[in-house]
């Protein structure tokens, strides 16, 4: 079983959801992002999702876009992301990577998979790669023992839902609302419905980009990124990040509070 699977199982045994915290690599700097992710782990975040900054992030809302722009303007490279993953994985927490497809294709799919595995990354979340176009990634992730998280959406048909989860390994990412990251739910019942539809066709854990009690994992990005974005100094940002991470960690452990 993958390291993410082990972490999900452990959380499930504790009767709680897994907490995934997302941060763009190289934001605000390479070292700053390592410090931020380490702080999140220390404050109780179970799994770190490292997003590779990309010039055209169509699935991300304004907060993560701004953070990605700052990282890119600072000159972060894909090779830096590998170094960040290695440093964060060294803490012992599972590190999953979220990336748009072009940076992977440009790096070379197999080489990327090899380097990600040797950095200690568990696998990829691919917001703009659907299984239909993923032959090369399916082969590379098999060859290097990496997880594959494709997205499922409230608009996915039953047939696509079944096909998509069949290609996932590690966990499934359910997009809670029809919209970009950081967006608020327009319809509150879309996410639980999607999670139960996905649960009917897979035994894999299901993560939702929303604080929700019915999923196996909750994925938080924009709110954490905003702590760093809005802070006057890096130290203030880290302090705010620790506070929010601890609150979120308490939230998954004691959801009725």
């Amino acid at each position, binding site marked *: 079983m993958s390291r993410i699977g082990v972490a999900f199982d452990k959380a499930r045994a504790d009767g709680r959801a897994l907490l995934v915290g997302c941060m763009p690599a190289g934001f605000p700097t390479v070292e700053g992002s390592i410090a931020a992710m380490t702080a999140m782990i220390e404050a109780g975040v179970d799994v770190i999702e490292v997003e590779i900054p990309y010039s055209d*992030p169509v699935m991300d809302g304004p907060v993560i876009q701004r953070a990605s*722009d700052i990282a890119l303007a600072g000159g972060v490279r894909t090779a830096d992301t590998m170094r960040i993953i290695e440093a964060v994985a060294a803490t012992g927490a599972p590190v999953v990577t979220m990336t748009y497809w072009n940076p992977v294709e440009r790096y070379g799919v197999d080489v990327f998979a090899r380097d990600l595995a040797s950095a200690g990354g568990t696998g990829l979340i691919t917001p*703009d790669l659907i299984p*239909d176009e993923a032959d090369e990634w399916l082969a590379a992730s098999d060859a290097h023992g990496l997880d594959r998280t494709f997205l499922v959406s409230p608009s*996915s048909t039953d047939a696509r839902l079944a096909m998509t989860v069949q290609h996932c390994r590690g966990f499934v990412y359910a997009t809670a609302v029809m919209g970009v990251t950081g967006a608020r739910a327009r319809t509150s019942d879309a996410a639980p419905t999607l999670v139960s539809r996905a649960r009917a066709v897979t035994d894999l854990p299901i993560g939702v980009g929303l604080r929700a009690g019915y999923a196996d994992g909750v994925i938080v990005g924009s709110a954490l990124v905003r702590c760093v974005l809005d802070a006057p100094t890096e130290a203030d940002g880290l302090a705010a990040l620790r506070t929010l991470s601890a609150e979120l960690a308490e939230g998954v452990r004691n959801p009725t509070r």
Partner: protein
Amino acid sequence: MSADALAPVAGPQPDSAGHFGRFGGRFVPEALVAALDELDGAWRTAVADESFRAEFGALLRDYAGTPSLLYEARRFSAKVGARVLLKREDLNHTGAHKVRNVLGQALLTKRMGKTRVIAETGAGQHGVATATAAALFDLECVVYMGQVDTERQALNVARMRMLGATVVPVTNGSRTLKDAMNEAMRDWVANVDETHYLIGTAAGPHPFPAMVRDFVRGIGDEARQQCLDLTGGLPDAVTACVGGGSNALGIFHAFVGDEAVRLYGFEAGGDGVATGRHAASITGGSAGVLHGTRTFVLQDADGQTLESHSISAGLDYPGVGPEHAWLHDTGRANYLPVTDDEAMAAFELLCRTEGIIPAIESAHALAGTVALAPKLAAELGREPTIVVNLSGRGDKDVHTAGDYFGILDKER
């Protein structure tokens, strides 16, 4: 002719998942797959439906003013050393070939029962065309436009608003066309139930490249027949400018099966491909994924999209439609860069010889033709016949061109 512009014809088609060789396909969030499948299904049903084809044909004829003329530009020809036939898409309603695509997609939007269209625009031409169709079909219309472009193209912003559209300035990233496209995509993901994303060129995820190509391929169907009628034969070459590439595919498609007809696409070379300041995705870019499709892209070593540069706002885009990438791969079409200066020299030449002010986009096709003519004449040993897609008129470019030539009176 345009009574059935969608009648089935021979010509290259992608596979069922929208792949043109190693290009095309769908690189989109799962949330959009259902909408793309719905669009693909609606499109396939519509083209098989004679009433849809008749309605589209009637709109093209009665509203857009097609078939556009094929005009023999004798004075321009004499300067160039070729028999140059201009496909006068500049005479269409709204001033460019783009009206064909927006009318087709607006009809399809109605057919799918959707009430809202969104679009991206660079210079504002596609935005104006979309706002036009939205007014005609009583659809809500939101146009995303980079903030840099809303400032450069204030007149087109006003035109869109006059037509009832909402123009949203995009302040993300480089604040130009590619960022407007990202923002339109985000809108679509969030509002896909009632919204159709009316993409302005033969790019984006399947089925857009093939669908847009088919909506505009009447250009080539008409031009081929008009050339036969006028000259008794096919042309030696067909030329067009290539940004996203819809006007070029529109005129190429009918000729792809005519092996003796050479196809030339002229990309925006900006300050010159060697300077890095250009928008020539095929001649100066590399294979990658952008805006939902695999194609040639201007990108850095890490796959980050680079900013494009061109005097022509309509060609100023760091990608190109996947069918062009494939026609380049197979060698069926030739792609060459044309610099800003070369385009503006041809712009001036057409103004002075024919009394036609072309769009700066189309001036790239003219400039490429000027360079091509002597080579083709030498190769053939006779005067070549070249059909040029004059894809749009230059009214929108008067300020840019006036600035370039230094002929604007200084403000008093």
